[in-house]
Each structure stands twice: as structure tokens, then as C-alpha cells.
């Protein structure tokens, strides 16, 4: 960090500060923004009039803020990716999607051939049958990869996996189709599709759990590298037990001057009593630094819509599936919310279905009535099915929302046909409604569930296009490019209570920029996702994204 002032000139600076929306020059000192404006205004800050013009053909935006993603994104990239859509790795390489069984098998064979230990299991991630015409992998498909090495493909949802015959034999699951998570194939034996706790226990007992060894420095470094590749300068880890080793690791990683992202972990309520969690947050608040911000707690109320585990109000799932699961009992939620609310903690509450959203709003309302607390900014996460009345309640209660815009692309077709039906799918992740009613909002990727890429997330909110090309509520819920860019910068910063530090380019804030090759406001909205990211500036430190 330099104590000398550096003045950068750029093709254009989009500040996301409405009182000075565009500029060409920005002065940076001690990792913070001294001033932003025109050449005439800012040149005076340059020592000896020297202006750093390395960004002369680039466009600067506030560094993107990913308000809902997970450190798992950094962990998964140690394994081969077998999702259907292209995805950019932490090394900046576009890993192409594999869109049919043969391509998946070929990708896995390629990884298999590079493994030195003939006995080590091959794990892969990112598969979703809905993206390859609802074709479910079978053990026979994976036997084509290897019959002598265990092979396991973890689905994009993380709740389901596919294994080869060898794994089923070793785990003694081949004939265990009476277990609810062991799906039978046409031959009556296990098909290789496994879900649920019993099957997972057996498989990890014989193979070892690839993700149970705890977070490593490599994982955190990969996470930061992915952030840089995508123009992200503030990133969440929105559900973490924050065990002592993790706390120590995060402290060490973020204190390194080379660490290229600000990290905002949320403490998982599920692994703590409220009393423990409140004490832990109190202790952690002082343990942060300028790149590590503790203070928020995550509650998970229900499951996922595409997994049919979200809790829906009447009339329920479009295809008649049974209602989903509560992960917190409805009578327990008000007690938890009240305790955290009283303790001054900001809550991030996962509610996918509208019944879960209703419950969360009831709980916040009760807590607010009992202990009025201005500017609590409790934030509903995902909140995909909320209707206008629920948004009006959010507004009245001071609740923010972080909508899962990427769902429109990845599962919009499934929501249209199976889970919600045409009308409700039209207001899936209702960014337009949030805007009209005035609920502070952001949009997110939930990486690694969908790819980390705020420009892609913004593209989803602007175009509202499903992967098959269907427009979902485009006329009423789509954002303008400018509104979407606000959502992935100052909007997300607001939901994290960091909008005084990041999210816009203005005097006093951290010098955090996304450096783009093109002006997202000058291109066709359909091309928003394709604007190349050159790299980032974090606390004044310039970092060119790798391109492998």
C-alpha cells in the first residue's frame, strides 16, 4: 500500500455514486479513494503531475460485491468440472461445458488418465441432469471411465451424486435399493444415483470425503483468484461453522498484503446455540481487518425449489409434488430471530419458497415490535418466490433482499414447467418488483451452485432468459443495465452493511475497482455477460486477472 497518491486515468469511470455518476480520473492514497472526477479536477492530486494511464483504454467500475457465495467455490476447483455450461476457472481458463453423456465420460477419462495413484478415487462436480435433457447418469456410464478406480460425480445441487459400479460394490449398496436414497435402475440393482444421508455415509466411509478435511489456504487462494477473474473485490462466504482452524486460516490469508479480495463470512446458526453464536460474533468482530469482515449470521429456513424441498404456500408445487422441508421449525424461528435481533446482529435468512419467506417476515416483525431496532438490514437470501405483498412487508419492516437472478437462466425452464408454472415463474426472483416497491436489493450467484460472475448475474436480471431461450417476466421484472450494475455493487454492499466502505467509487472509500475492457453501459444489454474483465484493484493494489 503506497502512501504516495496515484492518479489513474481511464477511458471511463462509472462510479455508482449518483451525485457524480461518471468520471475519467481517480486519485488513490493509502488504499483509499482521495477524489474522483475529471482531469482538470483530479490532476492536482498527482505528484509532479504524473498520471498513471495504464487504464486509458479500460473502464473502471466499483469492484463487484458478491453478496451470496461460498468458499466451496474455491474447494471445488481442485476437482474436474462436468457441468453443461462453460465456466471460468480460478486460473482464468474457460472450462467448456459438457453437454451429453459421451462428453462427460470423455472429460472424466481425461482426468482419470492424469491421476498417478491408481487407487485414488476420482471426484468431479457440477453435473445437473436438467441441463442435459433430464438424462440421469448411470453406473454403467461411469464404468466407461473406470472399473478399477472409484468414480463419483457430485451434482450442482450438492445433494445428489452418481457413482460407478465399483463404488456401489465397495460400499455394499448395489442391492440396497430399499434405502430411500439408493435409486434402482431398470435391472433392479442400484443405478448409481445416490442421495440422502445413509448412502453418503457409506460412500464417504469407503472413499473418504473429498471436502471434509477442512478449508485449506489453497482453497482460499483459489477463491480469491476466482474473484479477481470475475472483477469481484468483496466476496461473502455465506454459511460457515467458523471453527477455530477456519478463523485462524482466514486471519492469516487476509493479512497477507497479496490477498486480493475482501472476505465477508457469515456464521452458520445451525451449528451453534444462539448464545454461542452471539458470543462468537462478539469475539470475532475485533478479529477482522480491512479484508476480513465478521458480524453476520446465516439462518436457513427451507430447502431449494428445484429440489422440491422449498416450503411453498398454497397451491404448492405446480406438478403436485409434496411441500418441502423446514430446516428450522416454524415455532423456533421467531425465538432465534429475536435473540440475534436483540444482540444487534444482522441476519441473512435463506428462504427459497414463499411460505418460508412469510415465516421469516413474521419473525422479523415480532422481533421489531418487541425490540425496535432502526437499520437492522436483516436480509432475505434467495427469496425467489416472494409476491408483491411480501415485498411490501419487507419495505415496511426494513428488510433487504438478495435475489437469485442466476436461477432464471439455470432453472427457469424447470420452474416454468414443473415447480411453479407459468405465472409464478414470471415473477421468479422479482427484481422489478423490489425496485418498484423500494426494497433495497442485490442479486447473486450462490457460487459454486451457479458460476461466480456478477456480470453474468446482472445479465440474467437484465435479460431474464432461461437456458432454452424462454423470457420469464421480462416486461415487468427485468432491470436496466444500470440498475443491474447497481445491484452487484452498491446494492450488495448495502445488504452487507459495508456500503460506507465499498460499492461505489467516491472519496473516502476503499480503492476497489473492477477493471473492464468495455463499457457495459454502451453495449447491447444482451452482451453484458461477455464484457471482458481485465482484473481488479483492491485497496489500491492493481491485479491483472490470469487468462489461461
Amino acid at each position, binding site marked *: 500500500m503506497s502512501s504516495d497518491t496515484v492518479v489513474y486515468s481511464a477511458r471511463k469511470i462509472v462510479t455508482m455514486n449518483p451525485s457524480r455518476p461518471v468520471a475519467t480520473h481517480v486519485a488513490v492514497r493509502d488504499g483509499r479513494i482521495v477524489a474522483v472526477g475529471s482531469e482538470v479536477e483530479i490532476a492536482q492530486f498527482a505528484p509532479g503531475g504524473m498520471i498513471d494511464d495504464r487504464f486509458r483504454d479500460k473502464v473502471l467500475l466499483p469492484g463487484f460485491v458478491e453478496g451470496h457465495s461460498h468458499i466451496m467455490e474455491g474447494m471445488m476447483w481442485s476437482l474436474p468440472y462436468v457441468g453443461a455450461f462453460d465456466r471460468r476457472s480460478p486460473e482464468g481458463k474457460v472450462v467448456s461445458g459438457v453437454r451429453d453423456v459421451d462428453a462427460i465420460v470423455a472429460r472424466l477419462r481425461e482426468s482419470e488418465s492424469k491421476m498417478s495413484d491408481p487407487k485414488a478415487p476420482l471426484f468431479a462436480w457440477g453435473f445437473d441432469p436438467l441441463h442435459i435433457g433430464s438424462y440421469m447418469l448411470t453406473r454403467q456410464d461411469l464404468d466407461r471411465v473406470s472399473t478399477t478406480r472409484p468414480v463419483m460425480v457430485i451434482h450442482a445441487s450438492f445433494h445428489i451424486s452418481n457413482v460407478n459400479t465399483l463404488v456401489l460394490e465397495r460400499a455394499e449398496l448395489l442391492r440396497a435399493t430399499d434405502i*430411500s436414497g439408493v435409486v434402482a435402475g431398470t435391472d433392479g440393482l442400484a443405478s448409481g444415483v445416490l442421495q440422502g444421508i445413509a448412502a453418503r455415509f457409506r460412500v464417504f466411509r469407503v472413499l473418504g470425503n473429498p471436502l471434509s478435511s477442512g478449508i485449506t489456504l489453497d482453497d482460499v487462494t483459489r477463491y480469491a483468484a476466482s474473484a479477481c477473474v470475475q472483477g469481484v473485490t468483496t466476496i461473502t462466504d455465506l454459511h460457515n*461453522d467458523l471453527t477455530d482452524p477456519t478463523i485462524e486460516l482466514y486471519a492469516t490469508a487476509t493479512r497477507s498484503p497479496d490477498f486480493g479480495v475482501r472476505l465477508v463470512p457469515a456464521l452458520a446458526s445451525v451449528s451453534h446455540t444462539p448464545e454461542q453464536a452471539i458470543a462468537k460474533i462478539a469475539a470475532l468482530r475485533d478479529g477482522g481487518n480491512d479484508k476480513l469482515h465478521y458480524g453476520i449470521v446465516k439462518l436457513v429456513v427451507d430447502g431449494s425449489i428445484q429440489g422440491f424441498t422449498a416450503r411453498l404456500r398454497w397451491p404448492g408445487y405446480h*406438478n403436485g409434488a409434496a411441500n418441502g422441508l423446514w*430446516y428450522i421449525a416454524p415455532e423456533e424461528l421467531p425465538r432465534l430471530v429475536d435473540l440475534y435481533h436483540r444482540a444487534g446482529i444482522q441476519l441473512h435468512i435463506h428462504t427459497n419458497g414463499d411460505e418460508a419467506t412469510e415465516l421469516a417476515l413474521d419473525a422479523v416483525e415480532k422481533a421489531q415490535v418487541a425490540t425496535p431496532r432502526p437499520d437492522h438490514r436483516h436480509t432475505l437470501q434467495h427469496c425467489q418466490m416472494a409476491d408483491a405483498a411480501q415485498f411490501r412487508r419487507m419495505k415496511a419492516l426494513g428488510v433487504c433482499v438478495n435475489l437469485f437472478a442466476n436461477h432464471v437462466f439455470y432453472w427457469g425452464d424447470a420452474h416454468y414447467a414443473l415447480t411453479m408454472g407459468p405465472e409464478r415463474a414470471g415473477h421468479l426472483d422479482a427484481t422489478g418488483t423490489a425496485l418498484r416497491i423500494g426494497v433495497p436489493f442485490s442479486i447473486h450467484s450462490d457460487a459454486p451452485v451457479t458460476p461466480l460472475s456478477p456480470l453474468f448475474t446482472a445479465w440474467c436480471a437484465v435479460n431474464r432468459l432461461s437456458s432454452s431461450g424462454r423470457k420469464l417476466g421480462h416486461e415487468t421484472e427485468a432491470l436496466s443495465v444500470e440498475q443491474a450494475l447497481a445491484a452487484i455493487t452498491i446494492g450488495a454492499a448495502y445488504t452487507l452493511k459495508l456500503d460506507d466502505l465499498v460499492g461505489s467509487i467516491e472519496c473516502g472509500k476503499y480503492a476497489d475497482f473492477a477493471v473492464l475492457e468495455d463499457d457495459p453501459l454502451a453495449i447491447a444489454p444482451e452482451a453484458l455477460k461477455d464484457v471482458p474483465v481485465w482484473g481488479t484493484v483492491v485497496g489500491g493494489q492493481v491485479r491483472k486477472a490470469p487468462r489461461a
Partner: protein
Amino acid sequence: MTQSAPIPLTVIGGFLGAGKTTLLNRLLASGHTRCAVLVNDFGEVNIDAALIKSHDGATMSLTNGCVCCSIGSGFLDTLGRLLDETGRFDRIVIEASGVGDPWRIAEIALVEPALRLDGVVVLADASRIATLIDDRQVGETVRNQFARCDVALLSKRDLVTDAQLEAARAAIRLVRPDVRIEFVSPDSAPDLAMLGRRPAVRFRADPVDDGIDHEADFRRWTYRRNGSFDRNRLAAAVGALPPQLLRLKGACRIDGEVRPQILQMVSRSWTLLPPDGSNEQIADAIALVGVGTADLPADDELDAILDGALVAPLAA
């Protein structure tokens, strides 16, 4: 104990406030058997300090040979470690979450050779269960908890009137007409071996007899057809069956499947699985038997719902 003898597993389920923690506290303190108990919330475990040998924040070892572990997020790892300590415990007890389905955990013992499932015990607060079972928000969760349990264990008997107790029993029987219902003893630890799947002796000397003819409360419905179901339409049809139908089971054929399938539906959740090899020959047709409450709609009404899922017979 030999190294290879599987350890009995008991899963304790039941909704929030059903009395799981009280029961587990007693179990740990009694030390009748060397139990490893996995609990959801360590903070609620209340053990006499004199009994605690060591406590490292995630595991509490007691002087009587019992161990209590916090489940946290590393449940599978914790259970795996316990299984590696062969011979140290006579029984493993897992507390299911108040909103979880204990059967999902019980299934671990059906696939893990080191474990033997010895019982799924679901606790219920006698003063609340009748209301909970019909609750708009959690009724389904609560009913599912009973769907596969071996014993329903009523707590807080001393706090309810006979009429309330009867309502509690009736509510559980509506979900599981066949389930064994017992009471939590107000002052002693439960003997889990006696609540197990193959009890050595009866739990109580005097059988629980409420003097009600349970058959009279229920109505059976039989559905027989030649032909086969379309899988997607069957899903819709099962979803359209009235809530008064509590269970449905039998063999059927699914269009495109070579082998007949076993359909099982309990309180709205259903599965379709191929029969295991040990079953007797299954007829090449559809034969389902349902049990519902006394106000189950007429047979032809129910028939019509499933008929909608039949694949039209091909013209010869």
C-alpha cells in the same frame, strides 16, 4: 463382544419440545449401558458435573462409560469415528433434529455393516401432538416422523387429562394405525433395548389397551387393474388422492419398466421401487391396498383418480 458384532442403533425422533433432550439426559446419567449419544444441541445436555470425566467442546466423556457428542455439521465424520472405536460402546443413540425425519438417519444402520438398526423411537408431547399433527405448517413434517417409527413414546402424561391422552393416541393412530404407543416413565431412564425392534420382554407388564376398536376407525380400499401406469401421470394421481387416505401399498406395473414395481405411500410421501429378490412372485398386474380414515371417499371416486394414470391399452 466380538469385533464383528454390529452395534445396535437407536434413533430418537420427535418434534421440537417433545422431550428428546430430557430422555437423553436421563439415559446418559443412568449409565445402564455404555452408550454413545449424538445430540443436536450440546447446550441442552444437562449432566451432573461429578459424572463428567472430560469435555473438549465437541465430546463429553462420562465416568459411567457413556459418551455424548455434538452432531454439529460433521455428523457423518463423528459417527464414522465412533464406529472405528469398536467394542467401546454397547449402543449408539442418535437424536434426530426436531424437524428432521428420523427414518433417514435410521437407514444408515441398514447399509452400514458395523451397525444394526434396533429401533426408531419418536417422542410426542401428549398435550400437543394432536394439534401438531394437523398443523398447517408443520403437520406434514410431524406425520412423516411417525411414518416409519417402531415406537411412539408419549411424554408429559402427568400433565394431561385422560381425554387429552386419548386424543393424542387417536391422532398418532390416524397416521400409523399399527404403531406401538408407550409412555415415557416420569422418573426413570428408558431401556432402549426394550423399545427396540426385537424386545426381549414387553416394555410394560400390563398391555396398553385403550378399549377402542381401531378397525372401526378406518376404511380399506382395494384397487385392482390389468395394464400399467404412466409414471408421470401416476405422480400426479398419487398427489391428487385425498388426505383421508393414510397408506397405500402394493404391486403395479409402470409403462416402459421391465419388472413390476412396489408402490408405497405413507402420509403423502411415496416411493416406487423394484421388489427385492426375496419377495414371492409378484403378479403381473396392478394390485394396491389402501387404508384411510372412516371418512375416506367412496371407492369409485378413488378408483377414478388412479384410472387417470393408466396407460390406454393398445389396440390388438
